[in-house]
Structure formats: structure tokens, C-alpha cells
């Protein structure tokens, strides 16, 4: 069967795949940026003693982390139109869902990052007269972010792979594009192998960057 590999399907469907890949990348970048920002706020809410707000943040994070992403994608897609009154389209829905979902994971990472900063650093910030937000913004978060950069990127690699789940609501990412091409030409094996290679190259490239970054950071400390 492998000898019967027909790689002409790949060349024929390249434009298709490129579009899917672009969407995967776009979704990853937006969800990462939004997720880290929202996740950091969640982490801060959890760590500060804010009563109901901390509790709500904790619940949100635990709930999101306990439901398969696939289900979250479906629910958001079905429920958002009921809230907003108008359908927002599969791609927008995917962006909202991924940002909200990944925020829960990023928030756990940022929480660990913030907790990894010695308490003395916060005291030192306060001691020169900075307030909570200044201390967070200038002292704690920049360090937490640096410390956690490798883990944040690892999570982003997972996020990139997870974009394949948007097939459930009909958005076309890299894997979906490959699958459709595979179906139209009835050559699924070729397309899956091809997708595996693309994913590997991109994710491996990213984790290589992670390693290099880790070394760069190690010099500063």
C-alpha cells in the first residue's frame, strides 16, 4: 500500500492546505495573546484575596479544564448565537472559544509563575513605594513571564495542535484541509502523513525556539 503512495494529491491540494495552515496559525496567535492576557488576570484574581471574584476565577479555570475542548467548542458555537442574537460564524466562534478555553490553562501557568517569584521581590517593590499594579507590572509579571516562557510556549504548541478540533464547527484548519483533500481525492493516508510532517516541522521548530530562549534567559539570571 505504501508503494502505492500518490503524492500528486498533495501538490493538487496545496492552496487548500495553505489556507488551512494560515487559519491554524491565526487562531493560535490570537488565542495565545488573548489567552495569556485574560489568563494573567484570572491568575491575579485567584491569588489576590478578593473573595467572590477569586472564587469565580477558580471555578472558571477548573470548569474549563475539566471539559473536553471539543465539547467547549460545540457549546460555544451553539450558545453564543443565543446570547448575541446573531450567529458570529465558525471562525469567530473558534477564536472566542479558544481564547476563553486557553486562558484557563495559561492562567494556571501564570499563577505558578507569579508564585515562583520570591515574596521578597514584592516587598522590595512595595518598599520603594510602588503600589500593587506598579509592583505587578514592573517587578512580578515580567519575571513570572520570563520564568514561564518555556512552559507558555509548550502550551502554545499544544494549542496549535488543538486547533485541529475546530472541525467540529466546520472551520477549516490545517488538519481539516488535509482531510478534505484526502476525501475529495480518496487518498486519506497520503494526506494524514503529509499533515503529520507539517505539524512535526512546525511544532519541532517551536520547541527548538523554546530551548534557545531558555538558554538566552539563563544568561540574564
Amino acid at each position, binding site marked *: 500500500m505504501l508503494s502505492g503512495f500518490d503524492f500528486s494529491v498533495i501538490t493538487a491540494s496545496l492552496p487548500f492546505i495553505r489556507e488551512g495552515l494560515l487559519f491554524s496559525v491565526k487562531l493560535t496567535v490570537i488565542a495565545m495573546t488573548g489567552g495569556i492576557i485574560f489568563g494573567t488576570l484570572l491568575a491575579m484574581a485567584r491569588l489576590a484575596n478578593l473573595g467572590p471574584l477569586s472564587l469565580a476565577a477558580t471555578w472558571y479555570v477548573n470548569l474549563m479544564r475539566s471539559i473536553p475542548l471539543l465539547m467547549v467548542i460545540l457549546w460555544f458555537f451553539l450558545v453564543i448565537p443565543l446570547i448575541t442574537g446573531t450567529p458570529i460564524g465558525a471562525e469567530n466562534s473558534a477564536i472566542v472559544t479558544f481564547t476563553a478555553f486557553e486562558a484557563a490553562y495559561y492562567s494556571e501557568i501564570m499563577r505558578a509563575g507569579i508564585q515562583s517569584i*520570591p515574596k521578597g*521581590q514584592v*516587598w*522590595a517593590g512595595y518598599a*520603594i*513605594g510602588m503600589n500593587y499594579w506598579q509592583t505587578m507590572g514592573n517587578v512580578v509579571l515580567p*519575571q513570572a513571564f520570563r520564568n514561564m516562557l518555556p512552559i507558555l510556549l509548550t502550551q502554545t504548541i499544544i494549542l496549535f495542535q488543538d486547533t485541529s478540533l475546530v472541525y467540529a464547527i466546520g472551520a477549516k484548519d490545517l488538519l481539516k484541509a488535509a482531510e478534505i483533500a484526502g476525501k475529495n481525492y480518496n487518498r486519506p493516508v497520503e494526506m494524514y502523513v503529509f499533515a503529520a510532517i507539517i505539524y512535526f516541522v512546525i511544532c519541532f521548530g517551536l520547541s527548538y525556539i523554546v530551548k534557545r530562549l531558555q538558554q538566552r534567559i539563563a544568561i540574564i539570571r
Partner: protein
Amino acid sequence: MAMIEIKSISKWFGQFQALKECTTQVDKGEVVVVCGPSGSGKSTLIKCVNALEPIQQGEIIVDGIRVNDPKTDLPKLRSLVGMVFQHFELFPHMTVLDNVSLGQVKVLGRKPDEAAENSKKLLHRVGLSHHAHKHPGQLSGGQQQRVAIARALAMNPICMLFDEPTSALDPEMINEVLDVMVELAQEGMTMMVVTHEMGFAKKVAHRVIFMDAGAIVEDDKKEEFFGSPRSERAQQFLSKILHH
């Protein structure tokens, strides 16, 4: 004239009482050394002075401002009180110069240029002009602690708190930090210093406070303390610490 007044303060961590009715005061220009066994509450006491730890009873007044008053602008108060920590607590992601400038820009609202100018002067004063553009991780412990002192001085504090500033240092580096502190004391800075360096205490302290189990056990003129401490606990402590 009292710069820091500590009036019968108590503090609990959950069930555990870390400070028990402590009362003392530090006058303007006075240098007070605080010593005592580990866990006796020394660090806690001085952290209460600039409200890094809240207190549950009593009151603390710094330069006429009630620290534990909900209406007090704590950031402002803290900028008036310089603080130096045992583990330096420099910001490792910034250069030495930025460490010293940060508070001036963010808290005092100085222009970045102006702040940098001033920071360089201070770094020169602690003997580190050549290291302004390094990161803290590239300096020795003694050098880091001198940067930390410069950072505190950059806010033009009216008094300084030190929490075991030399105990994380290699023996060789202790003196380079103590020298800076002696100089500060001789210039008339009001200082409250937690330390076990009795040499420093003998040289510049006006008074020595000895703490044990959260309480202030002795609060004497330096000469009296080293002459004949009243409590047995302090005698015992001194004998252990001076022995080697």
C-alpha cells in the same frame, strides 16, 4: 525627636503570635541595632514599620504618620522609608541602573534621564560606577547588596531599615557592605538594623534591642548592652555569638 514610634504592637500569623506587645522608638539620626535568635521576630518587627506586614494591635508612627491607619497612603509612606533585605531582592530582569532608577521614575515621577543621572551618582557613592549596565545576576553578593542600598537611597528616604543585610554574604564581602552602612550612619541617617555583626553594633549603634520569642527583652544603650545585658537569655546569646 522620635522618627519611628512603635507602641505596644502585637501581630499574629494565624494562631501564632509573632510579636508580643513590642514598644520602642528610634529618634532622628539614631542608629538602632536589633538582634536575637532566629525566629524571634526581628524581621517581622521591621517589616511592620513600613507596613509590609499588617499589625493587629498597637500602633506605629513614622515621621508623624500613623502607619496602621486605613487612610494612610502606604506607597507614599514606604517611599519615605528605605529598606534593604537579607537576599538583596534586586529585580533580576533589569540592569543595575534600572533597578536604582525604577522607583524614582514610577513613584517620584522623575524624568528617566534625571533619574539615571541621580542613580549613577549613587552607584558611584557605593563604588559600583562600572557595573551600571550589568544585570544583578552578574554581580557578587556584596556588590548586589550595595546596589540594593543605592536603590533605597535613591528615594531620598528619611530613615532606613536593614534586615540582616550581610548574613547572605561570603565572609570576604561582609565588610564592603558594612563600610557603606557605617558611612551612612556617620552622615546622620536614621537607621534600624537587624544584624548579628556585633562589630558593626559596637562601632556605630546608639542603642541595641534584643528580641526573644516575639518580645523585646532588652532595649539598652550600646554601652550597657555590651557591658552587662540584664536578661540571662541575652547573655547566653551574646556568649554564643561572640565566641567564635
